[in-house]
């Protein structure tokens, strides 16, 4: 054993420098625990990170930070996080969304961070459902979704008790599934409540400089507190003795010990590190859902092309199929995001336009492709997703000549040509990219279908936080890290 940390002892080791791991580590460092964060990747952020390519910085993961809470709001998750991590609102530089939509053929529901907008849209499009919808919202508001001991219920079943029109049920499921469901075609009702509140009752916001602002705020806070971290170094193995994590072997060979270990890398991923577990441990609880995302850099602001939505959740029919596709990608449904379309303060605009399109994908299918097949599949699906997105966006406005006004509205057939002409750069990530950079098995962004709300594992000093503990989204991830650190390390009796 030759690693540089060999023989070191910590109060707690946190595995993974994503949002949840960093939040847990900050809490522990705040109260003078000796903490080590280990991260295999060279950048922090986990599933919500960023990268540079051809001189541009791209976000991955973050379309929007959900759970927006205006200054002075009471008791909301965002306020809790700021308090618990002693961050100020200014650290996050959040700007609210312009407005988003759920779109299927024949129906469109707009929503903003003002919940009354969605309510009036439902009243307009589904007049017979509005009373049921209002009762559903009352039920959601009164529901304690963070209790660690609630009985599981099917979200679709609960929604169907309140809403008799399956089209509306499906429309509400599209954003909720896409922004956090680890289960096919349904999710646990408590998870639905977390997401519904995060998306609709609270809302979307984004820092002007994207997800790196949030990561930077967390890293700075942890550094100020004197927390130790080791990047480009994951955990190779957790040596167990009688149901206890006794030693942790890092990738560089260092053997370190800790009173407690908090892992943010996922349920099955964590079990498989443990010396008392088989190599396929947790195989009955690994996620099947993964995604592709295309990123298009536009030469103009999207709003100048007539695209004013912040996010569009689309589906090409009245039924919604949220499951692992048989094909490489399922382009029948997805999410379109324009990161430009937030109300950035002081009239700031992003320097370039961005269009991002997310859709369901099959990890195993991508994994079997040879290199050249992989590249051509990427190009093929990039183009198919662009076409699909155009079906759900207004035709782009184009200027015929420099001085002619007003701009002409392109025909549908011209729209593709306009988009190609407006494209300055493109990139795409696949399920393999997700696994490569996050270590999540099967590219499963939302992790295991069955969450471990208590955060407990088969070892008495190993705990989970993050996606597989069950709080969702960036805000949820941070809240998960905070809660698990409070409960299992800082709380009385710990």
């Amino acid at each position: 054993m030759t690693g540089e940390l060999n023989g070191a002892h910590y109060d707690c080791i946190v595995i993974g420098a994503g949002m949840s791991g960093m939040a847990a580590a900050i809490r522990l460092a705040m109260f003078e625990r000796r903490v080590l964060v280990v991260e295999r990747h060279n950048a922090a952020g986990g599933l919500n990170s960023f990268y540079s390519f051809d001189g541009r910085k791209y976000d991955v993961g973050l379309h929007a930070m959900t759970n927006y809470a205006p200054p002075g709001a009471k008791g909301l998750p965002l306020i809790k996080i700021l308090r618990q991590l002693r961050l100020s609102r200014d650290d996050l530089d959040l700007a609210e969304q312009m407005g988003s939509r759920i779109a299927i053929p024949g129906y469109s529901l707009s929503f903003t961070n003002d919940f009354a907008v969605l309510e009036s849209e439902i009243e307009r499009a589904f007049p017979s459902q509005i009373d049921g919808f209002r009762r559903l919202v009352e039920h959601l508001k009164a529901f304690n979704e963070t209790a660690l001991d609630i009985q599981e219920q099917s979200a679709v079943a609960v929604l169907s008790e309140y809403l008799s029109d399956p089209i509306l049920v499906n429309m509400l499921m599209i954003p909720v599934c896409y922004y956090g469901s680890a289960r096919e075609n349904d999710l646990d009702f408590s998870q639905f409540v977390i997401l519904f509140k995060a998306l609709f009752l609270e809302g979307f916001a984004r820092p002007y400089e994207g997800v790196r602002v949030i990561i930077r705020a967390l890293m700075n806070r942890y550094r100020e507190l004197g927390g130790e971290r080791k990047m480009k170094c994951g955990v190779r193995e957790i040596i167990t003795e009688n149901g206890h994590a006794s030693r942790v072997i890092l990738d560089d060979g260092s053997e370190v010990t800790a009173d407690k270990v908090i892992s943010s890398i996922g349920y099955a991923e964590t079990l498989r590190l443990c010396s008392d577990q088989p190599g396929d441990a947790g195989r009955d609880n690994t996620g099947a859902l993964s995604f592709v995302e295309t990123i298009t850099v536009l030469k103009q602001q999207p709003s100048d092309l007539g695209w004013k939505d912040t996010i569009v959740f689309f589906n090409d029919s009245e039924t919604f199929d949220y499951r692992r596709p048989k094909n490489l990608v399922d382009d029948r449904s997805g999410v379109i995001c324009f990161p430009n379309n937030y109300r950035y303060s002081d009239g700031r605009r992003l320097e370039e336009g961005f269009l991002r399109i997310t859709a369901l994908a099959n990890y195993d299918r991508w994994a079997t492709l040879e290199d050249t097949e992989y590249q051509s599949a990427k190009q093929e699906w990039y183009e198919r997703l662009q076409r699909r997105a155009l079906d759900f966006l207004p035709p782009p406005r184009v200027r015929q000549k420099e001085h002619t006004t007003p701009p002409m509205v392109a025909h549908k057939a011209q729209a593709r040509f306009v988009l190609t002409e407006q494209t300055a750069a493109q990139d795409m990530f696949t399920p393999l990219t997700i696994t490569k950079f996050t270590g999540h098995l099967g590219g499963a962004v939302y992790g295991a279908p069955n969450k471990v709300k208590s955060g407990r594992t088969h070892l008495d000093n190993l705990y989970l936080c993050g996606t597989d503990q069950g709080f969702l989204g960036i805000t949820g991830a941070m809240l998960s890290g905070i809660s698990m650190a409070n409960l299992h390390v800082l709380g009385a009796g710990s």
Partner: protein
Amino acid sequence: MTKDDVKQIVLDIIAEIAPDEDLSDVKPEVRLRDQLDLDSMDFLDIVMELRKQHGIEVPEDDYPQLASLDSCGEYLLPKFEAKASA
């Protein structure tokens, strides 16, 4: 040290953990939860800060003793005094 000193210490801690709360008119006899937006996470932080900043231990069974500023003064003063004379 007086009960008022102890109350001020608790108020200073609350100001640190909940800078978004208006603390200009906190009534000492009224439960903190009833006049401020504080949840169990915030109370855990009050306990943690008492330990970190002043070396005062509050066992979990005694958390209800921190309900109001008055009860904080009552409960914590002997602990601060014991600490000072130690």
